[in-house]
């Protein structure tokens, strides 16, 4: 009896270990996805180091709050796994004014922003759901990375 209980317990523990490994692997894929797919889109902008990535499905939404400082040029790079539909994103201010909508630019995933005075702005994004998703449970990594324009090098005499 004691032996059977022990074997059940070890079964549960093994399952726990499997789930933990599986979950970590899935998540680790988002980090490596952000590094391999998201970061190169920033090109010559320096990635600020913040990690904004998660798993989303068609029709799901997210919001990102960020302070944009005056006299800095920012690049936003959105990435998604290939099988997900396009991402619709908007930049809005605190009064809900839409300052940029990527729908007007073919759902572009990389854009630059600069502000004349420092502002806290919100990026609202949605994975489109107007796709013919056969099984309806298509989910995958998305990342939202920010780059900052490097200082222009001063010419040496």
């Amino acid at each position, binding site marked *: 009896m004691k032996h059977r*209980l022990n074997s059940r317990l070890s079964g*549960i523990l093994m399952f726990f270990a499997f789930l*933990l490994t599986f*979950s*970590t692997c899935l*998540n680790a894929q*988002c*980090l490596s996805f*952000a590094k391999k797919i998201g970061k190169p889109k920033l090109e010559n902008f*320096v*990635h*600020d*180091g*913040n*990690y*904004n*990535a998660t798993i*989303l499905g068609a*029709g*799901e*939404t*997210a*919001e*990102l*709050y*960020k*302070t944009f*400082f*005056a*006299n*800095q040029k920012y690049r936003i790079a959105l990435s998604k796994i290939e099988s997900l539909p396009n991402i619709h994103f*908007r*930049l*809005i201010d*605190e*009064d*809900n*004014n839409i*300052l*940029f909508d990527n729908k007007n*630019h073919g759902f*572009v995933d*990389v*854009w*630059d*922003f*600069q*502000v*004349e*005075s*420092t*502002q*806290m*702005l919100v990026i*609202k994004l*949605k994975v489109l759901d107007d796709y013919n998703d056969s099984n309806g449970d298509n989910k995958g990594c998305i990342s*939202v990375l920010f780059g*900052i324009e*490097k*200082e222009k090098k001063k010419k040496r005499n």
Partner: protein
Amino acid sequence: MRNSFLQITKGIFVFTLLVGMISACQSDGKKSSKTEEEKLVESASQPIDQQMMEDFNKSKLIFYSLPSPLETAMLIKRSGARYDEEILNPISNVTKYNTNLKMALNLGIYSADLSYTSLFDQTQSTIQYMACAKKMAEGLSIIDAIDETTIKKLEDNMNNRDAVMEIISETFMNSNAYLKENDRPTISVMVLVGGWVEGLYLASSLTNGSMENNKRLVDRIIYQKLSLITVMNLLESHSNNEDIQYLHGKMSELKSIFEQVKIVNTSKVESETDATNKVTTIKADSETHMSEEVFNNLLKKVKEIRSEFVS
């Protein structure tokens, strides 16, 4: 009978575990209660298209993006501030930190310090501060974020500032991602808060207590009021943790001073998009006001909080 009881228990355990894990993957910025920003958005009178609003009302995920240590260091450098090694957290302090809270805060603090040293091309110090960050990351069992290869890469690229910034940004992302994705978001929040406070401390120390010496730098400090809203929301989304409650208390003290700082948009926020160059410029006039007294109180409070963090 006992067998089926065990099986049911096992089933419940596994199900709970599974649900917990799946939600952990996406819970970093989950809405738990209405934040100040949400209220701002909801209270806005201007209509936005209905479908989009309905979608976002159902939104379950929020990212709070604080200025990273690297961005803060860039802001400090671009304001024309100088380099001052004296204001950094001494590397000798690294052995003092042995709780998760202290290690996490000082991972953020050393990350900010190393970003600052790198922007001023203080390569030797950058390597030393990276070693401190590595020690903190190891203490927190953050695997593979900063290792010997990172230090070696830094040494090999000592004269290439762009490469150094790239390495720093990568290590910060690695630590941040590791913590978020291994169900330790509260530690991740502590690291971010530590880094943000250090950035504020460096900027305020570099004013030498004067509002007149470097007005651009003072301006950068004033606008941290906006980032503080993000800090508060970030902390409030993990408020059941004791260490987070402690930090929330500290940040509330700072908030009560920042509330006396005025930032007002004096014109409507408008945007101008240049589709050819894929760039949008956000235009708005804003005015700020901070009295000498508030400035001094702010400097004093920042110094006090930072001293507590590094002690």
